[in-house]
């Protein structure tokens, strides 16, 4: 089982905060990999919120191919974070040429495009780059989106962090999600490392998704180009979130109604009975069976945690106004926010969605039995 940690803070933080929290939970992961998702960036990226940032790992040849491709499209580099790593990586970490974090200026002919079209083109560009990388193995692309950085690597989280020198002032974010990986999936593929990302939505999960195959088949057949990949059974959680919010126009509170719908008796008693019955039936293929704890980040800068229907995975949320964290274990929370009112710590159970909004003032708990606010 992997270990998860996510933090949302009014002030930008170094990703090391999250990695140290993962380190105290190290009994629960085997150091086979780490994934980082950073959003609402601080440092130099704070000034260029709208510029799409490409995150990935490239060989020298891959970088040259990238530059040619991006220039042909009309993208200009606006800012880049060069992560130059020592020639000899620590034990268990593969040798790489370049960890790329590069912000671009949009091509001129994209000016004035409606946002939805812009977002579709960003997705398309990322998928093309990924496909180019798959052909020759010289590029791995994690995300291409404004105000989002992703870093993933094989190895022990803290060793990787030191190797990549992640404790640098240019790398700061107000929302950080990190996963320490327990490898259960044979050869390690970085595309199988959490968190996963699609068009501004990101989630990470621990546990296995026993309903993976039918869910994958369903998502793959939605006719949406971004629903691909699935090197990990957890990637579907991100895509279901995207599907629920983007395609169905529902709020994050409805996410749990899709992946773990209420059972018949509760459903009948629910004020949104008709809507939820419809959702349960029409999204039947997206029902998960756990055991899973999902932590996710949305474009509106909210962060949330949900559990499977039987609550078979650990997860706790706590903090203080201005800074809240979601963690697999209490010790992770203690490491990151020791100065909090621990009596307010909350472990979401089988009906709960714990949400911390962008204002970071409180943990909002939505029960599936509550009426659904249909703001969309």
């Amino acid at each position, binding site marked *: 089982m992997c270990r998860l940690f996510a933090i949302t803070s009014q002030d930008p933080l170094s990703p090391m905060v999250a990695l140290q929290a993962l380190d105290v939970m190290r009994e629960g992961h085997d150091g086979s990999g780490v994934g980082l998702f950073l959003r609402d960036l601080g440092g130099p990226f704070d000034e260029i919120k709208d510029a799409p940032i490409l995150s990935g790992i490239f060989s020298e040849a891959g970088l040259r191919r990238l530059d040619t491709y991006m220039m042909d499209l009309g993208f200009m580099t606006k800012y880049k974070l060069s992560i130059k790593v020592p020639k000899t990586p620590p034990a268990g970490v593969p040798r790489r040429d370049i960890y790329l974090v590069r912000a671009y200026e949009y091509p001129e002919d994209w000016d004035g495009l409606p946002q939805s079209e812009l977002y579709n083109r960003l997705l398309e560009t990322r998928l093309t780059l990924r496909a180019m990388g798959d052909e020759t193995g010289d590029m791995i692309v994690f995300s291409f989106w404004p105000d989002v950085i992703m870093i993933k690597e094989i190895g022990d989280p803290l060793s990787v962090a030191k190797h990549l020198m992640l404790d640098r002032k240019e790398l700061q974010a107000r929302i950080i999600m990190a996963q320490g990986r327990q490898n259960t999936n044979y050869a390690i593929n970085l595309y199988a490392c959490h968190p996963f990302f699609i068009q501004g939505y990101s989630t990470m999960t621990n546990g296995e998704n026993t*309903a993976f195959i039918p869910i994958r088949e369903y998502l793959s*057949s939605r006719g949406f180009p971004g629903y691909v990949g699935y090197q990990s059974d957890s990637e579907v959680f991100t895509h279901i979130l995207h599907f629920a919010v983007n395609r*169905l126009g529902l709020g994050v509170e409805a996410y749990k109604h899709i992946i773990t719908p209420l059972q018949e008796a509760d459903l009948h008693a629910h004020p949104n009975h008709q*809507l939820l019955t419809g959702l349960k039936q029409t*999204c*039947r*293929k997206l029902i998960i069976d756990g*055991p899973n704890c999902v932590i996710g980040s949305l474009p509106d800068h909210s962060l949330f945690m949900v559990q499977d229907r039987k609550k078979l995975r650990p997860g706790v949320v706590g903090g203080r106004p201005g800074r809240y964290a979601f963690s697999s274990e209490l010790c992770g929370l203690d490491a990151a926010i020791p100065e909090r009112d621990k009596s307010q710590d909350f472990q979401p159970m089988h009906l709960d969605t714990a949400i911390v909004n962008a204002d970071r003032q409180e943990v909002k708990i939505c029960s599936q039995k509550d009426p659904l606010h249909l703001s969309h």
Partner: protein
Amino acid sequence: MQPEGPIAPFSLSIKDLPWQIAWDKDKCTLCGRCTASCPVNAIELGVFRKRQVAPAVGILEAPENQYTLYYGIRQKTDPAYACVGCAMCNMVCPNDAIIPMHGDEIDKLRMHGDRGGQARRRGGRRNDPGSLLDQIKFIRISMLTDPALDAGRHEFELRTLLGRVLPPEQNLKFMAENGWTPPVREIYPLMIGGMSFGALSPNMWEGLQMGVAYLNEELGMPVRMCTGEGGCPPRLLRSRFLKYVILQIASGYFGWDEIIHAIPEMKEDPCAVEIKYGQGAKPGDGGLLMWYKVNKLIAAIRGVPEGVSLPSPPTHQTKYSIEESVAKMIQSMYMAWGFRVPVYPKISATTTSLAVLNNLTRNPYASALAVDGEDGGTGAAYNVSMNHMGHPIASNIRDCYLNLAKVGMQNEIPIIAGGGIGKTGNMAANAAALIMLGASAVQIGKYIMQAAAGCLGSETDRCNICNIGLCPKGITSQDPRLYRRLDVDQVAERVVDVFLAFDTELRKILAPLGRSTSLPIGMSDALGIADKNAAERLQINYVV
């Protein structure tokens, strides 16, 4: 027969018959129960003459013959009276003195079942003991990376959907704009398939209905039963229990006059309407109720004269193309109940199933597709249809599901699988395998007849006389002397037993796979088979 006597082409010896009666003279009390209960008069009282040679004691005396008589059972060898192996003689014998034994080679009777130029007709099954479904194993076991669920203690929701399920986006739009969405029923994934009132005896039908009602009302299991093509008793049509019933309409339209006229008086809508275009036991052939079974009651319910054979046409006579056939009939049936009742077609498994399915994807009302495989049973059909026509269910269901998945409609049109589920007694395992291959629900017929009423049929041509109304258990007979043998309440009780045990077994399969809150439709990664070709064909794991 005398050694020099004439031999007709159909002169058979007992050895040539499929079933040979073993009778024990020492045990027999000559009570006559066996001959009285034999449904086909295969045995009769025999008077046997026996010679004994009495050797002489003295030298001058000659040995002599002594003649005695004894009474016993004689098995007829006339093909018209050949033993069917039902073993009712054994069941009624107070001393276990008689039992039919199956011959040790392929019988010769089968070449003589067509006397008078009449091809053999029978009820029952395909007479093929094999089952591919039995070879499928469930191999993805949750254990350490994810905990196995507890089949006894965790919550389970073993439900499926019957109805046209819209895509989620469209459903939300429909609800916002129309306030109407197509009717969808949440039902139990094991259904009792179409067996008509007429094919089954009144006691059997009533027992099934009572069992289904009990499962729904007392145990909260939304089990549904299809009427088959034979109408529906008027009182049931006007009762609240109609909601547990799927009304079948087929090419003979038997009983539909009564049904249509009852619509204004219905307290509840039926669960659904099944339009039968084909069945697995006799694909491409219509239903057949032979004259023996068309008594006054059956004639009244079906709206036909008494004592005539009722062969339904192989196809619906008013239709000439699939577009018309499907669209018109489905829409008419929807209209009859104000678009509140799901309507779906049932077909025989065939290589053309995909064409039907593709047509349904373009029909906005079609609410499921029931596919009946070659192992489906029947009350009456030509032997050749039963044994040789039809398509295996597993690959047909898999093809249908994968085809729907390809066009993204795998949640929109439920596929119902039938034919051969539980053929060798492994009903839950067979049902789970079909569900994981892509079926939303499964239908059973023969299994429930065997389990709930003790049907004697087997895959080695035992009994199989459902067609002529002589069912020795009273399951498929319309003769009160026979069907009164069947206790309605006991049938109902057994129906409940079967469903409860199935439920437990299904949980015992799903829980170790880590599934409980939704039916694992299409969870093909859990399936494995030790036959490489089958694995490749079904797109499941090859395991040895």
